[in-house]
């Protein structure tokens, strides 16, 4: 792109800076072309595609089992949930009922994924705002969840644990104990998160009233996840279209009306607590049974179109599969939450300061591979 700087007198001069592709606060290879006037952001233009891998194209030549490992690499912090989305779409298309045990385990894994994702959000958000210590506390606690994943799934971030019809392998015998241990530990330290950042006067001043999205705007732009719910947009797929074992648990959908950076942050903090409650309800009641339904080695979906939404840590992930009856899908589309949440960045950030742009970008919790796919 050609970046032209207008040179018509000092007061009309735009100061264009390039945040990214390599920049500490863009969390990946996102490039923001920011037009400044002094410290004030005039407009932001996101440039994406630096790690576009063509996952949708690749999927057209892979079988449904093989697609799973690509979804891990989209939103790598919600790997379990991404896997689940494809699995659910395939299972719904084939009209397979997966065992109860699988549903419970998937739900617990999804919620653990959500907690670890929000922990990393807290860590990096603190770092974006200059509180470097947050980063280490967040990662310290996240490590414990990754260990749980590693023990059962064999991978830490890139888990590939779900497979159409069930799971790759059963949970490790230690799984329940470890999860309970973690919940006990994390309930003990989560107050540190609030002490260090939430209650901090500097943090509150930095985040309150910044990057406001009203309910109407949030709906119009289709913001989902904690970003949308902070604006009062009740968009929790777990609540509205429950999948897996979410219809068996009671939980609260975190809703705020302010829609600013602080409430996006708060929504994530509260979601961590809600996720712990969900796990509490399930962890002792995992039914016995097989860990996978009976599946044919080659899955062929009947001709048709299938759409499945799940709630990842960042919002609604939609999987749209068009099948022509072959073992490979005809077309796969991932409606990724980050892609949609990034779109109104200009609307949120123009008129604020550079520091606010960083805070707003941080509060969207963007994962760039998910945007680019």
């Amino acid at each position: 792109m050609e970046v032209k700087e207008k040179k018509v007198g000092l007061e009309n001069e735009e100061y264009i800076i390039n945040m990214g592709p390599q920049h500490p606060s863009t969390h990946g290879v996102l490039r923001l072309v920011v037009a400044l006037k002094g410290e004030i952001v005039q407009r932001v233009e996101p440039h994406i595609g630096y790690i576009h891998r063509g996952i949708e194209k690749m999927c057209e030549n892979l079988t449904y089992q093989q697609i799973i490992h690509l979804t891990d690499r989209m939103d790598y912090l919600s790997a379990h949930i991404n896997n689940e989305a494809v699995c659910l779409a395939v299972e719904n298309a084939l009209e397979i009922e997966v065992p109860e045990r699988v549903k419970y385990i998937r739900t617990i894994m999804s919620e653990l994924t959500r907690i670890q994702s929000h922990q990393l959000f807290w860590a990096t958000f603190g770092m974006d705002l200059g509180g470097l210590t947050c980063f280490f506390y967040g990662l310290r606690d996240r490590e414990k969840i990754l260990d749980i994943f590693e023990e059962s799934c064999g991978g830490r971030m890139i888990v590939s644990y779900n497979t159409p019809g069930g799971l790759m392998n059963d949970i490790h015998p230690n799984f329940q104990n470890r999860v309970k241990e973690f919940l006990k530990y994390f309930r003990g330290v989560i107050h540190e998160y609030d002490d260090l950042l939430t209650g901090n006067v500097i943090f509150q001043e930095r985040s309150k009233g910044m990057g406001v999205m009203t309910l109407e705007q949030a709906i119009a732009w289709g913001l989902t996840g904690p970003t949308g719910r902070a604006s009062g947009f009740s968009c929790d797929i777990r609540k509205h279209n429950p999948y897996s074992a979410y219809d068996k648990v009671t939980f609260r959908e975190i809703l705020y009306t302010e829609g600013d950076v602080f409430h996006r942050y708060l929504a994530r903090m509260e979601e961590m607590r809600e996720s712990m409650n969900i796990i509490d309800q399930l962890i002792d009641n995992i039914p016995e049974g097989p860990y996978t339904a009976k599946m044919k080695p080659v899955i062929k979906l009947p001709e048709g179109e299938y759409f499945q939404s799940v709630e990842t840590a960042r919002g609604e992930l939609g999987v749209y599969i068009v099948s022509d009856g072959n073992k490979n899908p005809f077309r796969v589309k991932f409606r990724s939450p980050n892609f949609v949440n990034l779109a109104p960045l200009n609307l949120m950030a123009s008129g604020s300061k550079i520091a606010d742009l960083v805070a707003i970008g941080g509060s969207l919790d963007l994962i760039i591979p998910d945007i680019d796919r």
Partner: protein
Amino acid sequence: MEFSIYDFSSFTAWIDQSLRASMSPGLAVAIEMLIIGVVILIFYAIVGLFLVYAERKVCALMQNRLGPNRVGPGGIFQTIADLVKLLFVELVPIKNADKILFSLAPYIVIIASFMAMGALPFAKGLHAIDLNIGVFYLMAVSSMGVVGVLLAGWASNNKYSLIGAMRSGAQIVSYELSVGMSLVTIVVLAGTMQLSEIVQAQQYGWFIFRGHIPALIAFVIFIVASTAETNRGPFDLAEAESELTAGFHTEYSGIRFAFFFLAEYINMFIVAAIATTVFFGGWMPFNVYGWEGFNKVMNLIPPFIWFLGKTGALIFLIMWFKWTFPRLRIDQLLTLEWKYFLPINIINVLIMALIVLLGWHW
């Protein structure tokens, strides 16, 4: 009652006399200056190296980490290894940079911090120069560094650097007021600007105790404002690495970067040393009126240990700020100064003047 058994004035006087006895006065002064210069330079380097190590260790412990632990026992030689690395790093030439100003900027910053070092009283009689306007001199010299920062930002031909430098300019100009006003509060109480006399006046109690409430307020404002003045977190807007990558020193590498880096730590030492001198009795030991035995033990501890100990405690406080708080935004930074610190400070000076007038201090 003699408080300190350690007096360096006779020692320095002896050096002066023996030099003057053997050579012409002009040469003697020149040699004295050389000695002082070398001593301060060595001290400067040691303090710099130690503080870098201390900062890394402190932040590591606060963050549940170990910190440097590979080079030498407990990693104590880590900063020396870093220094050697920085010395060998290529000085990357910047396209379209203003070459002269670009190379000059780090020296201005480092000279400013170097000059401030000269006036600090480390112990009785142990200072390079005892100006009768010591406080004034320290303030004037320590605010010179901003010129270097501005030059660095301008000459780098980098947009981030320029924003960082402008932020730094606005920040230091504002906070210089608070630093000055809070020092004035104590000058009112002490009745002098000479650092040695300020320390001497605290013989029977540090000013933070003697001036009670106004002195305490002045101290809090001083420590916050001076953190801002040294460009340290939570006021590190000039470098704000999550916004401006590295701010004004984005384009610097090698030894020039090392100068900025070192100057930041030395400035931290200097502001902590000023706070020690002005509020905590400088090199004066901690004495409680009436506890003779306790006071005697305290007096045995050498004054420079007292001085460095107090300074170290304040430096730790500044580090503690940095590793706990998120960064402020530029408008909040200025709001804090102009809406909170400055009004409070002005009233505080008035209260202090009233207290001194009425004799309500200890």
